[in-house]
């Protein structure tokens, strides 16, 4: 399994042709306490860069963009009752949705962990 990062602060961990997507720990720290996560419909087909999910804090609503194209394979049902998982567990249990990738070459445009860390340090 390989983990990639986007400049919009999403992470995606790819296993075969399925990628699990969430927002990074850095992103959750910027957003503050997450109060609600609006998740995409399972089965929906999505294009790279589409705003497919919304993460709400008390004073902001932030779009989450899918870093890859494909179809939504699953969403994290646990977030309905525990949106705070995105705060406490952003890069593991606080994942948002899974995508079945339609074009794995899109992963090439994303950053690896080290590159993302350099990117965040530069902000």
């Amino acid at each position: 399994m390989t983990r990639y990062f986007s400049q919009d602060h999403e992470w995606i961990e790819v296993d075969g042709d399925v990628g699990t997507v969430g927002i990074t720990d850095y992103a959750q720290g910027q957003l503050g306490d997450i109060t609600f996560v609006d998740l995409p419909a399972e089965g929906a087909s999505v294009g790279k860069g589409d705003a497919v999910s919304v993460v709400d804090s008390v004073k902001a609503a932030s779009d989450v963009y899918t870093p890859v194209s494909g179809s939504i394979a699953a969403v994290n049902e646990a977030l309905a009752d525990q949106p705070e998982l995105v705060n406490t567990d952003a890069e593991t249990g606080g994942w948002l949705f899974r995508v079945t990738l339609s074009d794995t070459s899109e992963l090439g445009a994303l950053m690896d962990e080290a590159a993302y860390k350099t990117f965040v340090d530069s902000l």
Partner: protein
Amino acid sequence: MNAPNASGWRPSLGDAAQAKNATSSGDYALMLEEALSFELGSADKCGVDLEAPGRAPAAGLAKFMRKAAPVLPGLTEPETVRHYTRLSRQNYGIDLGPFPLGSCTMKHNPRLNEKMARLPGFADVHPLQPQATVQGALEVIEQLAHWLITLTGMASVAMSPKAGAHGELCGLLCIRAALDARGEKRDVVLVPESAHGTNPATAAFAGFKVESIPATPAGRVDLAALKSKLGPNVAGVMITNPNTCGLFEPDMRAIADAVHAVGGYVYCDGANFNAIVGKVRPGDLGIDAMHINLHKTFSTPHGGGGPGAGPVVLSEALAPFAPLPFVTRGDDGSMHLVEEENASEGHGQAFGRMVAFHGQMGMFTRALTYILSHGADGLRQVAEDAVLNANYVLRACADVLPAPFADSGPCMHEALFSDSGLAPGFSTLDIAKGLIDEGFHPMTVYFPLVVKGAMLVEPTETESKAGLDRFITSLRSVAQRAKDGDDSLHAAPHYAPRRRLDETLAARKPVLVWQGEPGMAGTPSLSEIGGS
């Protein structure tokens, strides 16, 4: 813990219960806690004496009857008066002190306006009475319309919109109707990034796509950037003038000319009309439509969130599309209502109807009273004093708080500050909460979005110099504490009816209605809703 009272309710004492001087009631002299009405009342109490009906319901109604009365406890009059009076004391209002919310124009509400609105000839009149029986009410609408047109230098006014955002919608729908009449399908509205949130929301509500225009470093609309976005797909622009940074847009005429040159229309958000009333006529600046918040400039009370009123003045180009209904004056001085029935006689292009009935009559009465009370000299003095008061605050505080646009000249009726330069970990929120402890309502915070940690102070013309001096002293003191890193500010307010409230909890587990049964302390306990 304190003992429950007769109804079973007891105040939530929180940490105060452990304090050395804790009272047994949970009240502290004039600091009074108050239960929910449902916790105080009971099903067998009623504050209105009503005889019991003496005959059975009509047979036709039987199958529709409610199985049981609504589960709502009642209260007698003395209990009701006490409940709401105690609640009112947990509120701040203009009657208590300055309420310097930028963009909101919280000025004194003259009580004559209240008295006039309550005359039975205005308050106890039905909107569908025969027109011959409501000539005075129609005349109030007509007279107010006349003064709004005169003060803005526009061709016409649509009176029915219910508030500012509803007025924005009215203006944009007039633009849509005018474009439709020209057979054009333009779908883009340009909105500055500093705009009120209602502007892009309204444009989307009216079916337009929103494109953002950047601001210049001097806090004005970037004319060059605006021009670069103009084209045959642009229906119009929405400009706030004076803008949300509290500055006049000196290029307004040039903006209007450029938009008109490509066939678009200019909408002006009139939320800040108070700064220029009697001094500048928007009609002279090339504006096609502008709403006027009667609850701002013309001081109808805001009432803790409305009602407002948002009449929209219109240029010659948009006037034919104004929505129904409206009032016209006949040659003999009689008033006539134009409605669906007779709109085809000369008003066939009206775009439709935005509300049931005629708009916010109660606000019209108050606003007309306000205009006549102030007169031509008074209205101009309103604008001048509002601008003077804001500049006084700006110059008196600019050495302790950064004022991002102060170098470019005077402000209009609002002074804008930023939280840059506070000690690490301190922000606008701390200053706002610190001002609460000082006895003031805070300014507008974190708006406009184009300034980091924005604080927008609008004193209005109804503050005295002595009152402003007290406010300035407090603002300077709190700002200095935030610069010095005074940690006690993080816990402010200390002296308000409530400390900082857990908004995250409220949003994660919404409790929007009381869940209990009457006459019992039925709300979830603090532990049940996640409190400590």
